[in-house]
């Protein structure tokens, strides 16, 4: 049994296209440095050229949220992560 659970962090990422940081999700880490590293592994699959912010979830002050869903692209050098990597013949139909 772990004595103390790693704190929860909210992760914000700014992609290579110059848009502002966006919330992509959360994760657990013992401290801020590891939160950034874990975010690289979990939320960018190590795509380069991105900037990551990690904020301890307990430090967030929130109004009633109204945010809409969003996506973040996984690293594009792992081509097999993309469904189109697998050539499914047309006559199989939708997959």
């Amino acid at each position, binding site marked *: *049994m*772990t*004595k*103390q*659970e*790693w704190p*929860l962090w909210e992760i914000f990422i700014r992609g290579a296209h110059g848009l502002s940081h966006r919330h992509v*999700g*959360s*994760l*657990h880490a*013992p*401290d801020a440095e*590891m939160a950034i590293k874990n975010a690289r592994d*979990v939320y960018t699959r190590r795509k380069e050229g991105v900037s990551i912010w990690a904020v301890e979830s307990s430090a967030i002050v*929130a*109004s*009633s*949220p*109204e*945010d809409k*869903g*969003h*996506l*973040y692209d*996984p690293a594009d050098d*792992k081509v*097999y*992560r*993309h*469904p189109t*990597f*697998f*050539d*499914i*013949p047309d*006559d*199989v*139909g*939708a*997959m």
Partner: protein
Amino acid sequence: MYAQMVKSTGQGVKSLDEMDPQERAFQERINAGDKIEPKDWMPAGYRKTLIRQIGQHAHSEIVGQLPEGNWITRAPTLERKAILLAKVQDEAGHGLYLYCAAETLGVTRDELTEMLLDGRMKYSSIFNYPTLTWADMGAVGWLVDGAAIMNQVPLQRTSYGPYARAMVRICKEESFHQRQGFDIMMKMANGTTAQKRMAQDALNRFWGPSLMMFGPSDGDSVHSAQSMAWKIKMNGNDELRQLFVDQTAPQAEYLGLTIPDETLNWNDEKGGYDFAQPDWDEFFDVLKGNGPEAANRMEARNKAWDDGAWVRDGMMAHADKKRAAKLAAE
């Protein structure tokens, strides 16, 4: 499905007139397609049911790493090894997204984990089956992920915001999983005699358990009715099972494999296949913890958690020391 037979309040669905004003406003928001967010008011039953459902879904992703992880060290080519590893890694990621979604409801990941490990919470019945040959990696991707997608795609529109957002991310990654499974099946079905036998054997063993993933018919289940009213369950079990069979039967035919159901037959009138129900006695046995690999799955998860305790504690202790040193220096 990854969340099977999730119990809700068990009290049946109230009509809008029977609800108090707060609950009624809540239900009206859901009916209007609004998303419920963590800080919004919600009925206790909605919160509790969601924790059960998202938790079970997350546990399924985590336990679901094991049957496929069973073959990572035996993948037959470097590329297959990388693909399978990436896929099982995605499952860990999906588990993580879902635990985070559950955490917004006021439960911690550690609490959920402990409920899995001591048997208070369940995971999908499908992951209690063994993976015996490489063709099972194909069958799991093709059938198990194929069945999961049937349920997960509509859940992107579920009423709870964090859950819906997790599902959007998951569905985006999940599509490659099913295709890599079918890709393996194609190679096997068109391969040597031994490979074809493996492919058919995998289909024989995974067909019934895949149909069970949708859960028994929920025609008169009060739990299902309430969950559907809350839009945390989007479709009936039979409806999704039918969709799955209709999608999968032609794919099996394409592969030159035979679905192990002599009654399987296209029914023009209903515009879908007639098919035999899976063995529901077996399903309830598995749900009670008697799945062929159930004891091994729980042992593996418990061992990982127990063996990892010193790591989690060690990393936390170091972080605490660093924080203390920083404060002392200020």
